[in-house]
């Protein structure tokens, strides 16, 4: 099949996998930069690109600067960081669990995050934009801790982790539904709860970005250190161990790191389905990347997808209240299917 990268030339590949990631990463990074810039221009009051750039650099009219720097930029950066964290975690978990259907929600993190947020909204009368994410984060970490504990009782294999994750996620969803049905008695509260469950970036600003950035950035960068572990795990745990990899340490580290990243994202923007599943697969279908490159490319690709999705939400905000998760699924699913169909059997 044709590759997105031009790397499979006559020269023998120097990486562990056949595609050189340099071109792909550069193109994705350029697209992301363009998307961030475009996203800062889009809104209820669209600005020309020139005005947007000068506002970003501290020029333009004060009110324009305020809109770009205080409203749009932080929200765009949260979308970028969120998409990056979700897609990178998805790629890492797919490699770690050796399961193509794994995504960041597979260990119960997202479900726990939603439950925590919904409980905070229901129980705390004036739930602020501080308490809700905080409760969400705590519940997300609690959910994954419970998953790992249950999986250990079941033998701690990849399969028991997945099964325990499914169980914890279902229990979380059930409790969330329960809280939702209680809160529907009050219209306002019910709408708040529903709104959180659908995920979104409405009203998110610099404080949210500062809260989510450290775990997402540090966790993601630390995942990159395990690229070669994930490459080796493609041949199974025993072979990876015989190739000198510390499989146990890699597994523990990646579980902790991806949970941290996903919890930070989910507690800030709610659960956004699909980004973590589809972005790594789209890249896999398009290029043969070693895991370090795949994690990096997934991060940029996920950022791109969520920035574009949220921008579309904002552009259409006066018409309809769309959520980025809806749009990323609507863009991602057909694209994914197209890649899958185009992929000819060897």
């Amino acid at each position, binding site marked *: 099949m044709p590759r997105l990268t031009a790397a499979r030339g006559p020269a023998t590949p120097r990486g562990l996998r056949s595609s050189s990631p340099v071109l792909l990463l550069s193109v994705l990074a350029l697209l992301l930069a363009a998307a961030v810039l475009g996203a800062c221009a889009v809104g209820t009051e669209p600005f020309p690109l020139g005005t947007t750039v000068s506002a970003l650099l501290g020029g333009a009219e004060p009110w324009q600067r305020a809109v770009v720097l205080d409203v749009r930029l932080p929200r765009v950066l949260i979308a970028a960081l969120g998409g990056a964290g979700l897609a990178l975690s998805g790629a890492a978990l797919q490699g770690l669990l050796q399961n193509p259907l794994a995504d960041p929600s597979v260990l119960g993190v997202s479900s726990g995050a939603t439950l925590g947020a919904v409980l905070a909204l229901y129980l705390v009368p004036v739930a602020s934009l501080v308490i809700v994410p905080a409760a969400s984060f705590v519940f997300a970490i609690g959910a994954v801790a419970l998953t790992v504990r249950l999986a250990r009782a079941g033998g701690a294999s990849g399969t028991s982790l997945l099964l325990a994750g499914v169980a914890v996620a279902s229990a979380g969803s059930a409790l969330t539904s329960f809280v939702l049905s209680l809160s529907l008695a009050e219209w306002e509260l019910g709408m708040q709860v529903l709104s959180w469950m659908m995920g979104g970036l409405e009203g998110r600003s610099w404080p949210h970005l500062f809260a989510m950035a450290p775990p997402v950035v540090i966790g993601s960068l630390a995942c990159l250190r395990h690229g070669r572990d994930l490459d080796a795990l*493609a041949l199974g745990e025993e072979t990876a161990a015989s190739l*000198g990899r510390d499989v146990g340490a890699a597994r523990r580290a990646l579980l902790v790191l991806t949970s941290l990243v996903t919890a930070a994202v989910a507690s800030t923007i709610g659960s956004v389905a699909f980004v973590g599943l589809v972005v790594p697969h789209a890249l*896999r279908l398009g290029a043969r990347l070693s895991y370090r490159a795949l994690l990096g490319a997934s991060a940029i690709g996920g950022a791109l997808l969520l920035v574009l999705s949220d921008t579309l939400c904002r552009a259409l905000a006066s018409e309809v209240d769309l959520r980025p998760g809806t749009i990323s699924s609507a863009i991602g699913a057909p694209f994914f299917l197209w890649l899958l169909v185009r992929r000819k059997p060897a």
Partner: protein
Amino acid sequence: MSLLALEDVELALGPRRLGPLSLHVAPGEVVALLGRNGAGKTSLLRVAAGVAAPRAGRVTVQHATPDRRARARLVAYLPQAETSVETDLCVRELIALGRLPHLGELAPLGPPDLRAIERAAEELAVTALLDRPLASLSAGERQRAHVARCFAQEARLLVLDEPTAALDPVHAADLLARVRVHSRAGEHGALVVVHDVLLAARYADRVALLAEGALLACGPPLEVLSPAVLEQGLGLRASLAREDDAFVLRVR
């Protein structure tokens, strides 16, 4: 001088146990591990490869107990039915993974790595298949690719668990012949689980037969695979003999 030494090794096989037993593999030597299903061949191999610890006893490689990374440069291990979920992995990429023990965390493949990959591919006649996805290969080709991954590791010792299990007789013989050439040429040792007594006799310098929780016999095939041993160890009422260049197994 022995490459691999298992000394008084004892391990648990579910409720039963294997050993204590001792087994050595010398440089340039191919040792075939025989035994019925459940005799503990795979468990013993995992201990020899260092991916599992014995319950008691000592496992040394070149008279030392290397750490994980050093061991990976000394011992190459092919588990039973090694598969890959990265279904688009091509042969070159599979073989390249054998270089992991020699690579720094960030380093790309260097000239020695590329040479090792090419040499391993040549030794197993998969050079023409290097860019083919594993999924598109026949069982014989795929197995040769997996063994090439082990060769590319440039380890002193090969530990192969039933590398011929899915292969027809011709491909099975071909694979073991290549392992033997590799061992002889590079003074590598090989410990290989084989089910076929004739293949073991033909390609192994020594056979080790596991039965009833112990090492029932260990030595050159014609010397140790007597009718009594074959019957007790494999439930095979047969006798092994050599006629001119051929090994013959007469089954009664």
